[in-house]
């Protein structure tokens, strides 16, 4: 099956800092999503981004499908950004394959 690698595994930020999370995948995909899982376990859709660039407030994402990676940018981080960020891909079938996640801790 397709392999999804996320880096870094852990990230500690001071409030107000910027950061970049990376997702590499091993094969071509037709769907890529970024999720934020909060401490209560809720998995929140951030971006549906099989290719190109999107922005939503302080968050933005870029997927370069031909090079099999995606980046998630967090700017001016806030404590509410803490949690686990997952990248998930779908390879022309019916299932999302998730990476192991990046755990982000934002300190006040």
């Amino acid at each position, binding site marked *: 099956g397709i392999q999804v690698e996320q880096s870094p595994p852990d990230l500690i930020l001071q409030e107000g800092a910027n950061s970049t999370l990376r997702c590499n995948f091993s094969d071509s995909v037709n769907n890529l999503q970024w999720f934020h899982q909060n401490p209560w376990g809720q998995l929140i859709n951030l971006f549906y981004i099989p290719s190109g660039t999107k922005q939503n407030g302080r968050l933005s994402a870029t997927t370069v499908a031909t090079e099999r990676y995606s980046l998630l940018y967090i700017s001016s981080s806030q404590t509410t950004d803490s949690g686990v960020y997952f990248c998930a891909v779908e390879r022309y079938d*019916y*299932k999302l394959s998730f990476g192991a996640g990046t755990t982000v801790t934002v300190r006040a």
Partner: protein
Amino acid sequence: DAGVTQSPTHLIKTRGQHVTLRCSPISGHKSVSWYQQVLGQGPQFIFQYYEKEERGRGNFPDRFSARQFPNYSSELNVNALLLGDSALYLCASSLIWAGYSNQPQHFGDGTRLSIL
């Protein structure tokens, strides 16, 4: 509009028992998928259903089964529960089965299952 709803939110069972988890998709969504998330890991795919038919199955034992109803809601059943079945079970819905169109999946808040 309501998002994906799952019930119950929490459940405690003992080894050997059976459990049924329920999911209602977003209105208009015909595809429902189930995922298991063990503590510290990413979600793992269990099943996908579209138009009441199983379209995909992950690497899970036959103790796991599911079905989809005419109103597109779904149930996940697990028999002969083991300690290792303790996890967060997530349901996701999408507008159209991925085989036909590229659509994002939307997740419910999950059912946290604990096996004693």
